[in-house]
């Protein structure tokens, strides 16, 4: 078991190293960015000052030059442009890691202008959407992949292969736009914007607290409201990520089906169900986890962008708003949290992998990613 602990430690450390590197990169970029912007402000203010001075005939040119110089230095100190850039990056890193990012100009999400609370609000919604979608994809994708693997080159299998090829080049957010066109514009089945979910929920809880509806109908209505507003984004994410993932399951399962132990299991008189679920799928689980992890996690990017299409109040929409309103700190915080989400997912999957494969559990390290 010692080696198990060690393997997990290696995973965690190397992934956290990646996180630190990314945060350092973000911080350096931000410091660089703010420096350039502020530098421009200083230059403008100094020019203004110079023009004002020029109108004053009482000063000699040397005095003017000296005054301008002093003014510039004072400005640079005021804007924090002097000092060691490395220490600035370091402080920025600390701020980002602790999500101590100050406030944004306006409240974009949640109910506070503090960047961290906005991001947490958005993160919560992204997690709700993305993980629900992932769960659904896993279940349907597994079923689909297994079914296709049992009859390779059959109709379902060919369709699945085509679907996998298709979804590999499908922009998820575009599918989202199509969804809106079809189900919100042409057939008014679902709302075009998901943002109002919060108002709907608020009204609902007000109605509940005022006692006009029963607990049961409150719960049902609560779930219905969420599903109503989440349906389109959820379907989009599931639809686009499921093809590739089912295809991976299919390939891994077909590979495992060819192995000798499957023949052994069949010869032992196990039912096809037992063979498939008990032996093949169990043995296929480590590689499935490895490859699927990437396919699912890579759909995170698409999912995030799709949020902007649906107006789902998550990280993606926050990105969109922050970009439109040029709020670099908000973007930086958002990037950091997205990366964090990604890396935590990878760490969890890595650990899961270690537990799934007894060969690694007992005999040492193998990194999945």
């Amino acid at each position: 078991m010692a080696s198990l602990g060690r393997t997990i430690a290696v995973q965690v450390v190397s992934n956290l190293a990646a996180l630190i590197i990314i945060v350092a990169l973000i911080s350096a970029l931000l410091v660089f960015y703010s420096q350039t912007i502020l530098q421009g402000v200083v230059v403008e203010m100094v020019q203004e000052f110079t023009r004002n001075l020029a109108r004053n005939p009482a000063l000699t040119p040397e005095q003017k030059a000296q005054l301008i110089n002093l003014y510039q230095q004072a400005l640079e100190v005021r804007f924090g442009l002097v000092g060691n850039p490395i220490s600035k990056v370091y402080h920025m890193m600390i701020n980002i890691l602790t999500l101590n990012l100050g406030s944004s100009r306006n409240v974009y999400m949640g109910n506070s202008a503090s960047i961290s609370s906005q991001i947490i609000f958005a993160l919560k919604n992204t997690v709700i959407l993305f993980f629900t979608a992932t769960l659904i994809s896993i279940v349907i994708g597994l079923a689909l992949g297994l079914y296709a693997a049992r009859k390779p080159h059959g109709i379902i299998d060919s369709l699945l292969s085509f679907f996998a090829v298709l979804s590999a080049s499908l922009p998820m957010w575009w599918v989202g736009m199509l969804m809106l066109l079809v189900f919100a514009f042409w057939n008014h089945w679902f709302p075009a914007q998901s943002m109002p979910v919060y108002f709907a929920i608020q009204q609902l809880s007000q109605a509940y607290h005022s006692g006009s509806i029963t607990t049961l109908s409150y719960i049902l209505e609560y779930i219905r409201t969420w599903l109503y507003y989440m349906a389109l984004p959820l379907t989009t994410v599931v639809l686009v990520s499921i093809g590739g993932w089912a295809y991976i399951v299919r390939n891994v399962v077909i590979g495992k089906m060819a192995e000798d132990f499957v023949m052994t299991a069949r010869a032992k008189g196990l039912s096809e169900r037992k063979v498939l679920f008990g032996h093949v799928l169990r043995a296929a689980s480590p590689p499935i986890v490895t490859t699927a992890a990437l396919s699912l996690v890579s759909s995170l990017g698409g999912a995030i962008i799709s949020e902007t299409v649906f107006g789902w109040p998550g990280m993606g929409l926050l990105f969109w708003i922050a970009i439109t309103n040029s709020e670099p700190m908000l973007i930086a915080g958002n990037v950091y949290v997205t990366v964090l989400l990604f890396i935590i997912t990878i760490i969890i999957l890595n650990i899961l992998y270690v537990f799934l494969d007894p060969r690694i559990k007992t005999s040492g390290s193998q990194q999945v990613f």
Partner: protein
Amino acid sequence: MTAVLEVENLSTSYYTFRGMVKAVEKVSFKLEKEEILGIAGESGCGKSTLAWSLMGLVPPPGRVVEGSVKIDGIEVLSLSESERRKKILWEKISMIFQGAINAFNPVYTVGYQLAEPFIYHKNYSKKEAFEKVKELLKMVGLNPEIEKRYPHELSGGMKQRAVIAMALALEPSVIIADEPTTALDVVIQSQILNLMKKLKQDKKLSFIFITHDMSVIAEMADKVAIMYAGRIVELGPSEIIFNRPYHPYTSALIRSIPRLRGPIEKLQYIPGEPPNLISPPPGCKFNPRCQYAEELCKKEEPGFVEVEKGHFVRCWKYDSGKQSSGGAMK
């Protein structure tokens, strides 16, 4: 003596993109109780496919085309899949697989995989099943503690013993051993062979022993079937097969084996290569490499003829042309 396994006219083909491969064709033999039938042949002659056909487990794109397989008098091939699974597989016929390294699922403990037959066929509880597993492991000379280990933690010899233990679990009528010692070193091989001999005596087992190694066959088999290009070309008691074979292929094969003891004679070899089974030669499949081949051999395939009691040959030298291949067993 009663036959525990009767195979008649069994043919199995693979339907590949490049054409149909007749991997096993018109194979007939009987296995008596407490007997070991050795099936020998070179790589690609169809011995493993024959084993899979007996179990009804030919991997796609292959399937059994015709024939009958009777175990304890039950016709296996006509049973439905679920019936075969419940009544025949592992209870009546089990298998020791080639390459024990891969016969175990790497993610389960050895004990669990040995216990599975008890759980699924006998409805034992887990605890009961694991008690049985311990007995089995002891029987094949392994430490019962091994049940908690994963396959990759065992040495090749230990794994092979465990695979044998697994095959014996439900005390089946027939055990097929497909190249059980090929990957092992000679010392381990001799231990495993001794174990199998001992188990055969103690438990009164009937084996089908498949290997390419004629010396190993001689160590084990009471009766030997020599396969060439999907057909059994000669079948008979091992004394006859090894000491005075009839078929030209058998006799050349026996004379090509290097011997450890006795006078050193010049080794024989068979010129040419085994045929490609997608486009086999017409007539007797051995004719291009046979020194006695005549015109007839190149045109028509000989029948499987009983030349003396219990000794069958598929060669024009011994076929008068009257006996059809199917009726030879009767």
